[in-house]
């Protein structure tokens, strides 16, 4: 096993899949000559050439549009949208086409497409460049939405995403590209999409998170452990399909839960997970489920304001104590 950053593990996953399957192609703004805004496609152009690694105009609609058409007609495109805030310009293609061409035409067409993009705040980029909105895409049946939290998960999940015949939104976190971790070298290292993962065992409180909120939750868990409070931290890994079985199982032991998301709470992941817990585990509830989320404001620029609006380790600690 090698120790890699998430950016490197993504580049490795794509390269291995391109090596394995000649129909895998990469397209997006600055992905070829420049190697990707965050370096996640670095080295691919040299290795696989211009026909398979393509820079595009700044045209989000046609990046995803061409990728959907090509996916229907035999390619397996890995399209990069520079940031999820720009995916709004491709929203129609993603939700009205990628998500629908299989079902709406009675199963005739397939759309083996991966749209990779970057989500999240915390970089002082102001309100339009800092949104955490992957759950919007997870609203749509027909799409899969994957959000890795470690370099190993990024590799295994991305390889699985490239191999699946369904369209996948693969949502990375801008603040996490340099996060390092051990990554299996195995060229067939795959993590099935739609399986949550217990990242830390604990018997007092179930903490549900995904993407960079897993790291924050783990830090909170370490802190709480000093006071003898043991958190079970569960990483959803994909928002659709949403695998809540491990969450229910854990909750039936702990009877208490906190859901941590970087986005706004209204209509969010926490709302969904909490509702499902109330529906499935009502008899086990010992305390109202808590949500840790972003304040309901467009994210401001000033560092202190941004920090005040985004969920922090202390917020998770407070929420866990509140359910105890």
């Amino acid at each position, binding site marked *: 096993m090698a120790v890699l950053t998430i950016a490197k593990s993504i580049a490795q996953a794509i390269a291995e899949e391109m090596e394995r399957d000649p129909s895998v192609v990469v397209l997006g703004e600055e992905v070829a000559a420049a190697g990707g805004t965050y370096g996640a496609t670095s080295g691919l152009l040299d290795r696989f050439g211009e026909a398979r690694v393509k820079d595009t105009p700044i045209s989000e609609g046609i990046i995803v549009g061409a990728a*959907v058409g090509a996916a229907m*007609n035999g390619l397996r*495109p890995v399209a990069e949208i520079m940031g999820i805030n720009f995916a709004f310009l491709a929203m129609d293609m993603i939700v009205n*086409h990628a998500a629908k061409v299989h079902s709406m*035409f*009675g*199963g*005739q067409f397939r759309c*083996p497409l991966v749209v990779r993009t970057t989500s999240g705040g915390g970089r002082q980029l102001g309100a339009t460049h800092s949104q955490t909105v992957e759950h919007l895409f997870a609203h749509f049946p027909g799409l899969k939405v994957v959000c890795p939290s470690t370099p190993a998960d990024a590799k295994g999940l991305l390889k699985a995403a490239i191999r699946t015949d*369904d369209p996948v939104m693969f949502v990375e976190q801008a603040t996490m590209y340099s996060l390092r971790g051990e990554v299996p070298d195995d060229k067939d290292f795959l993590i099935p999409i739609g399986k949550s993962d217990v990242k830390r065992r604990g018997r007092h409180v179930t903490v549900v998170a995904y993407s960079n909120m897993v790291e924050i939750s783990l830090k909170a868990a370490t802190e709480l452990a000093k006071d003898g409070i043991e958190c079970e931290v569960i990483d959803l890994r994909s928002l659709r399909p949403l695998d809540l079985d491990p969450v229910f199982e854990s909750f039936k032991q702990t009877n208490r839960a906190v859901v941590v998301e970087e986005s706004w709470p209204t209509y969010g992941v926490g709302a969904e997970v909490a509702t499902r817990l109330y529906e499935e585990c009502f008899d086990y509830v010992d305390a109202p489920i808590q949500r840790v989320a972003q304040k309901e404001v467009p994210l401001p620029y000033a560092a202190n304001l941004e920090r005040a609006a985004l969920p922090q380790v202390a917020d998770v600690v407070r929420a866990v104590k509140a359910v105890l």
Partner: protein
Amino acid sequence: MDKAEMLELYRQMVLIRLFEEKCEELYQKGKIGGFMHLYIGQEATGVGAVAARQPQDSLITGYRDHGIALAAGMSARTAMAEMLGRVTGCAKGKGGSMHLADINLKFWGGHAIVGAQIALAAGLAWADQFRQTAGCTLCFFGDGATNISYFHEALNLAAVWKLPVVFICENNKYGMWTPVEKVSAVTEIRRKASAYAIPSDSADGMDLLDVRAKTAAALAHCRAGNGPYFLEVHTYRYRGHSMGDQRPYRTQEEIRKWQAEDPIGKFEKVLLDSGIAPAEIDRVDDEVKAIMADAVQFAEASPVPDDSEIWTDIYVEN
């Protein structure tokens, strides 16, 4: 063109016309639901353009798709069953009038978001270019669709990547109830292609042979590796934008003027002038009537999808 081929193209136009007249009737009886957009008046565009394609070429269009579907070779049975929401329809009853498609005919669908098919066409063509299939894509869209971002993004990408796609604008003079000149700064739509250095031509959409010849030339351009081509076809829809459209946005006089140029009547004259006997034409008309009667019977006798079908085809891998 030999006599058999001429009769075949005539047959296709008549089939589209009678198919849609039947659809109108069934819609009014409440047997067809949703939005339905008729192609009546535009038959020569679809039939003429599709006649120029080779088997490896792809077709894609918008929601006004019955004509392209039938010209592509979809049977009237399969198309009618889809209209009626039956399991024997081309999309198992999940698509409806606006979403006809058949992957085996390389007909990649009717798409009901205006202009989306132009973006998808670029992708279809890219895949053919990449896989070196020698296939080109014929992409049909309306005049109104040339004002949407997909149009401009797709033409630009197709030009930059030299994609083998023929963009065919069916300029029927209106987008819903709005005339071209009210919403498009450039009313000679083919000129928009020049912004992306794409060569263009225009065709008389009431003249099947003109559309066919211009499409063939466009395809030859693409197949030789020269990148995309743009064809503006001047045509007219006789019916409203969609079923139930009775709005007074155009004059009866204007409609009559175009109907005097009816593409089917015009082509019938070509057949007669070239020595085909009226009896042969009548035989085709009768044949199409029989096909339509059979198609309606087949569709009505077909089962609706089982309710459990709502859960199928959502994902390839669950």
